[in-house]
């Protein structure tokens, strides 16, 4: 690739050709303001904040969509440019509700931060608000279009990265609105609650549906026993809410924090991740024995499950009947745990802490009541639990390393990597190999399925049978593989034995409930953190987890038993794309 030398604000710099002026400036330490550009998304040039002056060219150019050219002389912050930027901010703010203090994004809002940076002290324009109803119809996501600045990141993520296409621009001019088709609500749309729109929203227009108040109430209720579980991906991300680095393992501090909040019992979803592997590996080996149906597709990601039910109903028989780790543990908390402690399950409030907004949807699915009641009562995202910890005044960073409660909390390295794309596949292979062959797997690292790549493939020899697997993250990538599987099915063949699908790019570490910024770069750092923990753990295979062995011995019998099926397995149903509520 050729290099290009140009001058930005009097400083010569050399960058590869095709670099945008915006990135070139960034590389030379100059931050150009922007409201629509995001490092993970293709720039569209909507906001106009990033304009720069190119010597010898009329007017101003948007630096996010203009490529560098040899010898360009660029100014990024002249008096007139600052004037125009202030003008844009004033125009946006005049149309934006002035309720920053009550906003979920207060202090983290990109509009607020630019308004401060550009000294918008008063507005010359008359303010107006749009008076649109707030859409709370989806289980995981709230959509408040009064706050929307129309940057289009959510539309890009939903349509291009996820190909769900639940939301799009409608209307024109200042009446432009981001909305599902036909003016329906998010809850009635194809939205899968993945929450990627939420993590890319620069303002408070899209956010998680909070359950904090309900959880405080449960904690404060002396008649309730609050039992919680923590998903794999939370432990390498929650620290970011308290100034720690992405990928820094803080599960011990989180155990302590939860106890300090007054939560009665702390379990770990990593335990049920191991359980999922034992059940799913068993299911896989059964299919191997009966020659199909292949491929088996993982079922841990609730965003993917709704996506599959909506867009690939013909493939539902391929989806593993295993519930996700959250729902498995939820069912066990209200049965096995309750019985073993002699507690009425109605006294238990089952709470889970998830990196995910779709988990809120999953917990509320009508079939997720195997214990006779809601198996998981409340789901809090990583961001919400961090808010509670701050509310309680807990100094998270300086907490001692706590421990969880026994029975449903021990875990192997195979469980912790569930939070990374490829982790479920790797964990399943570690167990399936040993269960199928009876031999010890010496090389436990399946590096081919790791990393942020959208579609990964690998082949593993299990006692003479070559198992072909595929791993995808991000639903646009899932579509690529699912279209192949659907085509295979029509032709009566199969190209894969086992497929892992995660709705979000990078896997659960990049979930819609994770700390913001939730950039691809941060997701990669969180993934590293998970593999570090995997390497550091004494047990690295799910079926070696002693609490799992005990669970089967004392309660479930054997993997795939009748009881295991009643509590740990589920069914899927085809969905209409749009359900118009009356």
């Amino acid at each position, binding site marked *: 690739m050729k290099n290009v030398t140009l001058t930005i604000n009097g400083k010569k710099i050399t960058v590869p050709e095709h670099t945008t002026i915006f990135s070139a400036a960034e590389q030379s330490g100059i931050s150009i303001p922007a*409201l*629509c550009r995001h490092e993970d998304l293709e720039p569209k*040039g*909507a*906001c*106009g*904040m990033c*304009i720069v002056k190119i010597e010898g060219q009329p*007017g*101003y150019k*948007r630096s996010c*969509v203009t490529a560098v050219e040899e010898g360009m002389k660029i100014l990024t912050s002249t008096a*007139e*440019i600052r*004037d*125009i930027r202030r*003008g*844009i901010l004033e*125009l*946006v703010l*005049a*149309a934006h509700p002035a309720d920053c203090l009550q906003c979920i994004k207060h202090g983290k809002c990109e509009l607020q931060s630019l308004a401060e940076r550009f000294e918008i002290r008063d507005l*010359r*324009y*008359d303010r*107006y608000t749009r008076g649109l109803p707030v859409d709370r119809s989806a289980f995981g996501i709230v959509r408040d279009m009064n706050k929307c*600045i*129309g940057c289009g990141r959510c539309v890009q993520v939903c349509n291009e990265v996820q190909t769900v296409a639940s939301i799009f*621009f409608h*209307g*024109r*001019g*200042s*009446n*432009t609105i981001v909305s599902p088709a036909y003016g329906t609500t998010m809850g009635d749309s194809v939205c899968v609650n993945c929450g990627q729109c939420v993590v890319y929203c620069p303002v408070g227009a899209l956010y998680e549906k909070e359950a904090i108040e309900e959880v405080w109430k449960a904690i404060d209720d002396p008649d309730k026993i609050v039992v919680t579980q923590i998903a794999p991906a939370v432990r390498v991300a929650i620290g970011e809410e308290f100034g720690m680095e992405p990928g820094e393992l803080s599960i011990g501090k989180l155990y302590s924090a939860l106890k300090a909040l007054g939560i009665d019992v702390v379990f770990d979803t990593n335990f049920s991740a191991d359980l999922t592997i034992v059940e799913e590996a068993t299911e896989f080996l059964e299919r191997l024995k009966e020659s199909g149906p292949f491929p088996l597709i993982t079922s841990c990601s609730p965003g993917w499950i709704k996506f599959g039910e909506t867009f690939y109903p013909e493939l539902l028989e391929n989806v593993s009947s295993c519930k996700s780790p959250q729902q498995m543990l939820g069912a066990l908390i209200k049965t096995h745990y309750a019985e073993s402690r002699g507690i009425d399950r109605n006294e238990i409030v089952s709470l889970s802490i998830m990196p995910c907004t779709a988990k809120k949807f999953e917990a509320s699915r009508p079939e997720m009541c195997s214990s006779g009641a809601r198996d998981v009562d409340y789901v809090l995202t990583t961001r919400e639990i961090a808010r509670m910890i701050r509310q309680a005044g807990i100094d998270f960073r300086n907490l001692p390393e706590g421990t969880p409660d026994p029975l449903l909390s021990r875990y192997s390295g195979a469980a912790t990597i569930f939070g990374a794309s490829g982790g479920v596949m790797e964990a399943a292979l570690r167990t399936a190999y040993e269960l199928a062959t009876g031999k010890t797997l010496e090389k436990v690292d399946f590096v081919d399925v790791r990393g942020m790549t959208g579609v990964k493939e690998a082949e593993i020899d299990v006692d003479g049978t070559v198992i072909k697997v595929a791993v995808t993250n991000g639903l646009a990538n899932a579509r690529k593989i699912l279209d192949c599987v659907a085509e295979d099915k029509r032709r009566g063949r199969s190209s894969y034995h086992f497929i892992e699908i995660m709705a979000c790019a990078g896997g659960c570490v990049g979930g819609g409930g994770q700390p913001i910024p939730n950039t691809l770069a941060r997701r990669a750092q969180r993934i590293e953190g998970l593999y570090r923990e995997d390497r550091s753990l004494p047990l690295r295979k799910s079926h070696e987890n002693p609490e799992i062995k005990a669970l089967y011995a004392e309660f479930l019998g054997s993997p795939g038993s009748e009881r295991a099926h009643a509590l740990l397995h589920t069914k899927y149903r085809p969905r209409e794309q749009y359900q118009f509520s009356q």
Partner: protein
Amino acid sequence: MSNMQHITGFATLENPLDIESFIAKGGFSGLHRALAMTPLEVISEVKRSGLRGRGGAGFPTGLKWESVSGDDERYLVCNADEGEPGTFKDRFVLEHAPFLVLEGMAIAAYATGAQTGYIYVRGEYPHVVASLSSAISRAVKAGYLGAHILGSNFSFNIEVRKGGGSYVVGDETALLNSLMGNRGYPLLKPPFPTEKGLWGKPTIVNNVETLAYVPYILTQGAEAFASIGSPDSPGLKLFSISGHIAHPGVYEFPMGTTVRELAAAAGGILGNLKAVQIGGTAGPIFDTAALDYPLDFVSMRKAGGALGSGALVFMNTTVNMAHVLEVTMRFFAEESCGQCFPCRYGTRQLAFMANKIASGQGRLEYLDLMRDTIHVMVGASFCPFGQSIAFPLESLLDRFGDEIVSFIKQQEFLKEAAV
């Protein structure tokens, strides 16, 4: 056919869909002539004629055709999304001389190697969609469109598409987006449509009137066309004349005809002339000095405006310029596509302030704030739409600012007097 009326000459046909009468009048002879030449010769003929695009920007048509490059799969789009207020000349052409446009398209397609053509018709012209479809099938039947046109190796098909009623889609990149089923958002240039247009393939977008003049160039020759009108803007031009004028309508005159001559041709101004808006709503509003402006691309640019679509809206002294301001700003607010922030929010605030002024609640500070707003929009709007608002707004404030100021003060006085 007189030199002074090419399109209007054909438009005198009793039945515009009667292909036989069209042929009898010399119709399709331009296509015959073109097919006897090589495509490069056709392009060269059009270049020498000096024909410039009649959609508003005035880009040399021959150059545009010549710049088509890349892929062999190519498209030709006839821009019939005539949305500029006060402009109704394309509608006139499509209603009265549809075959002339089809002939122009066939010649353009032959010259540029396009296999498929689309006519993107403004949504508000449903009757045109119907008559065009019928004209196309007649032309196909007669061998002027379709496979192996006039026995040659050249094949070309035309389909009609109906717009959804957006002004911005008159912009060629927004139009292509709309044709592909996307939102009518303008795109950044480059890449130009001639390199990457419909479905990423090289695409020529020409205005209805531009295409309707192409047959003339082929039949009469480039020199004949170039000898009409102004040296830099040769040829005939259709003018849409409306407002306070005795006989509003479409007039075909040589480029360079003055506003005064056109007003006279249209039966004269009703009352005393106060202002005239030239080139459409995105054009400046001039005072009576405009009467002596020659109407062509270069002269109008010199006068601080643009020929645009060739629309002239005459306003006499009964018109309140505060109301003109309101109507104009409301138009832009309603038509902004909403893609970029400066235009989406800027047009809304401009319309809001103009509305306050017109309804007697104006404040003098608004006038400065409007200028500041347009400054932001000119500097940072994504496409020419948001920038073009400066023409009408600044011309109103510069030429008629005193009147608007007195109107604001008078309304304030009346309110105080009422208390």
